[in-house]
């Protein structure tokens, strides 16, 4: 049975979460759904950054790409 290793991406999650949170906060303000306020924007950004980190750590993992490499047995030693 070929083995797999799990790679987590908390930093990527933080960066993309930060962008998403800032954009979502700004979008809600532009649409006048929430009042324009710098503290509110910071709260949205910080919350989305934390969610992004958690997503990068604990989200369901993507399956490995391609087929597993099957270890080939070493060739038999030549006999003389």
């Amino acid at each position, binding site marked *: 049975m*070929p*083995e*797999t*290793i*799990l*790679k*987590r*991406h908390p930093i*990527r*999650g933080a*960066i*993309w*979460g*930060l*962008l*998403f*949170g*800032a*954009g*979502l906060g*700004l*979008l809600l*303000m*532009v*649409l*006048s759904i*929430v*009042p*324009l*306020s*710098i503290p*509110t924007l910071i709260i949205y950004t910080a919350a*989305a950054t934390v969610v*992004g980190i958690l*997503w*990068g*750590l*604990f*989200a*369901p*993992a*993507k*399956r*490995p*790409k*391609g087929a*597993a*490499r099957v270890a080939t047995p070493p060739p038999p030693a030549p006999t003389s």
Partner: protein
Amino acid sequence: MRRWRNLLLVMGLLALIVFPSAALAQEEPKVDLMQFIPEQFRADFADRNGDGIPDLGKIPPEGVAGIWDDKVGEVTDEGFLAAVSGDFNPGDEGSALTGACKGVVISYDADGLSVDAMFDTGGPDPLMDIYGNQKMTKSNPLEVDTRGVLVYYGSSQPETFHDHRWFIKAEGVFKDDGGDPNPNDKNRNAGSVDFGNLLPFPFTALIQTEGAWVDNWGATELPEMADADYPTPNCVGHGWVKFVGPSPLLTPPGILALALVAAGFTGVLFNARPALSWKE
């Protein structure tokens, strides 16, 4: 079954769109704002769109500036952020204007057609719109077109302020302050603010505002403090302003917000998920 459901949905949406505008159209003005406009200028303020608010023929001149008025504004990012922050309470959905101040504010779009208006009679009543509703609340904010003009007339009669200072602040957007020794005993002022010229680009937002105007304060800048802490006579107020204009998503902040949401969502979904890989 599905056809009926879709029909109901469409009818519900149509009702949402049609009925609020119909209800608004039925509202009759209870106050004639022409009474605030001097007779010789009334020809420039004919009501062209029939909403009961005088429209604008030509832009009136800016109000007379006081000698302590801030003509430069903040020059650093830190200074700007400090100036536009304050003790705003987002839970306060109401509005107030205390003291002797009275006057009228009318906002116009880029074509000079009225967008919104409010007035205060200087008594204990709050700021009102021409339909008799309290104005500048979160649910009935003063609408201001970021491509248009705002015209105002204000007075402190029967008081006359001397060595007075004032400030006005809109959270996250702007702060302005000033004052004047007022040796000529002026107690009223009128003018206009051309947002189309002042703002670098149009935007839309709901914003909390506050301001104060205090008699006999002197040349130093007026700080933000609790209403009761200002010396009397004074005028202190707060409320909500909604900046309106083109479609929100077509403004530069709207485009930036959409781009950030799209990039962030795509990145979180496809670039930040943990991944399994085959062990070498």
